[in-house]
């Protein structure tokens, strides 16, 4: 399998305003050669605007872009020629699959035999053999997205930009296409920048996740890190459920910190983040006990609701002070004979609490 050139992209203090509205403020990041970076955020967070600036379809109001260290800020989109995959596929309806994929090669003025060979290779690579002479309207959504991927990759662009490419697909197809994109990235080694609002997609695909909110970059780190060591409350709450505890009497100890919550003394080990008055714990790290456990942290609570989800069961609790708690417990590990209204304990190891 051919390995193609991959480029490094740099953004320095990129800002974008539409009139008085600041769509992006001071975005600085570097995307390394062959990296797979996901831009994640709710709608209106600026992630798509940032992608459009990378592509060259929008001009940044302030800041500078570089490609392998060369200034790119004022280079028009057609001169950047990054591969681009859109949510609605954006195929050319009047061209066959083959002609769609050949288009960027024709733009580059490649020879007919070269075009034929590469298009053939690409059609095989995305598993569209036998569909070459069909029009896009004769293909399923997944097949159309494969054509879009092949068309964006066939000319070995230095960077591939993907704008929520799978949000129109159903769940199964989406999983298949995610595997496909992961495989293409592994095989081709191109730099991928992928926009999504789906946090599980971002965690599953990327080498690093950049989280956007209200036009600012909140955190950029590997999936495990953004999930387990969120930089702030927005990131923590955006990436799945999290229990937020407003703690008091925080004091630093040799092995971490100590605090109290509703009269219970809590220990925080491993110092994730700087000590503050907000402690966060992921639902899957909390376990349910019928009596107070001997070790670790525990809060007395009342069981409010129980949702069976197959392998896991989601429990809704309320602490003595009516703070809502969510626990995600393996169904197999659930104590028997639980009833709504029962007095229980929510427990977690000291190294699973995060200061926000």
């Amino acid at each position, binding site marked *: 399998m051919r390995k193609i050139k991959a480029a490094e992209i740099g953004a320095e203090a990129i800002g974008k305003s539409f009139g008085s509205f600041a769509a992006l403020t001071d975005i600085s990041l570097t995307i390394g050669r062959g990296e797979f970076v996901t831009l994640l955020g709710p709608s209106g967070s600026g992630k798509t605007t940032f992608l459009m600036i990378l592509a060259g379809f929008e001009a940044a109001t302030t800041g500078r872009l570089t490609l392998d260290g060369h200034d790119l800020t004022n280079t028009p989109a057609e001169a950047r020629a990054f591969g681009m995959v859109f949510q609605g596929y954006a195929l050319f309806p*009047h061209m066959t699959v083959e002609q769609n994929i050949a288009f960027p090669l024709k733009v580059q003025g490649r020879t007919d035999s070269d075009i034929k060979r590469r298009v053939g290779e690409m059609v095989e690579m995305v598993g569209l053999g036998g569909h070459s002479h069909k029009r896009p309207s004769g293909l399923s959504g997944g097949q159309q997205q494969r054509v879009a991927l092949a068309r964006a990759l066939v000319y070995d662009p230095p960077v591939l930009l993907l704008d929520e490419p799978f949000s129109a697909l159903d769940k199964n197809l989406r999983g298949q296409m995610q595997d496909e994109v992961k495989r293409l990235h592994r095989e081709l080694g191109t730099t991928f920048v992928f926009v999504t609002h789906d946090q599980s997609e971002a965690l599953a695909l990327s080498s690093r996740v950049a989280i956007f909110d209200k036009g600012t970059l909140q955190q950029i780190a590997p999936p495990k890190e953004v999930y387990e060591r969120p930089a702030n409350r927005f990131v923590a709450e955006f990436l799945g459920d999290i229990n937020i505890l407003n703690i008091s009497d925080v004091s630093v100890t040799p092995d971490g910190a100590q605090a109290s919550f509703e009269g219970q003394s809590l220990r925080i080990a491993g110092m994730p983040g700087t000590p503050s008055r907000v402690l966060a714990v992921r639902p899957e790290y909390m376990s349910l006990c019928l009596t107070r456990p001997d070790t670790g942290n525990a809060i007395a609570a009342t069981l409010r609701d129980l949702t069976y989800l197959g392998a896991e069961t989601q429990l809704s609790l309320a602490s003595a002070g009516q703070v809502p708690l969510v626990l995600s417990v393996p169904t197999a590990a659930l104590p028997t004979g639980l009833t709504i209204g029962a007095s229980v304990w929510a427990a977690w190891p000291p190294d699973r609490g995060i200061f926000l």
Partner: protein
Amino acid sequence: MPTLPRSALLIAPLIGFTVLTYLVPFLGILRWSVTLPEPGLGQYQTALSDPLVLSVFLRTLRICAVVTLTAVSAAYMITLLWVRGSPAQRLAVELCILIPFWISVLTRAFGWLALLSNKGILNTWMQSLGILSEPLTMVRNEFGVVVGMVHFLIPFAAFPLASAMRAVDERALLAARGMGAGRARVFGQIFVPMTASGILGAALVVFVFALGFFVTPAILGGGRSVMAAELIYLRIFQSPDWGLGAAVSVILMLAVGAMLALLMRRVRPGRPQ
């Protein structure tokens, strides 16, 4: 036998009106064409062999072809500005399309006459500016007819073109640019083919309309550039040759019908983009 839905009754007066005012007279014309002055297909034979009638048919076809080509190309550029221009451009173009559209065809033909005739505004200006020494003949010939017809038909071409252009997926154009295609290539190889159905629809509408044009050629052609519709008028109202007039009508009607059938087939809805 399936019974007609009750709602069909509601539209019955309209159908009755159409039958009474269009179908019955047309059947009358059809009868004249094969009975006057004597029964048989003699008038069709005359219509398709008389050099005068043939020259009118040829001129009609030629003028319609030129008008279609000119009106659709002009409308394409105007509509492009209408659909994709800045808000101010859109408003300006919209007014330029709609205001003439609301003015009667007769008024517009006389307007062009005032502008283009030998003692008209354009000739007078150019002569007093010293650009011309002799007036330039721009009416009472095919040029005048074409100008008047193109002007009248541009809005009819603009509407189908606009709906085709609005249906173009902006992202396909972005995708093409992103792959390195310059503006000219994006326009020629992506945008124009993506609006092909609109171009075809506009061309057929303009052509079909142009075939039956009467007022504009009569005024701006000044009796020299006679087209099929004017020929029918002359045969029925001025020389008592109703049979030939009727035969030419039927031929024109068939031509229009064939074009419309083609139009319906090509722009049938339900073709996914």
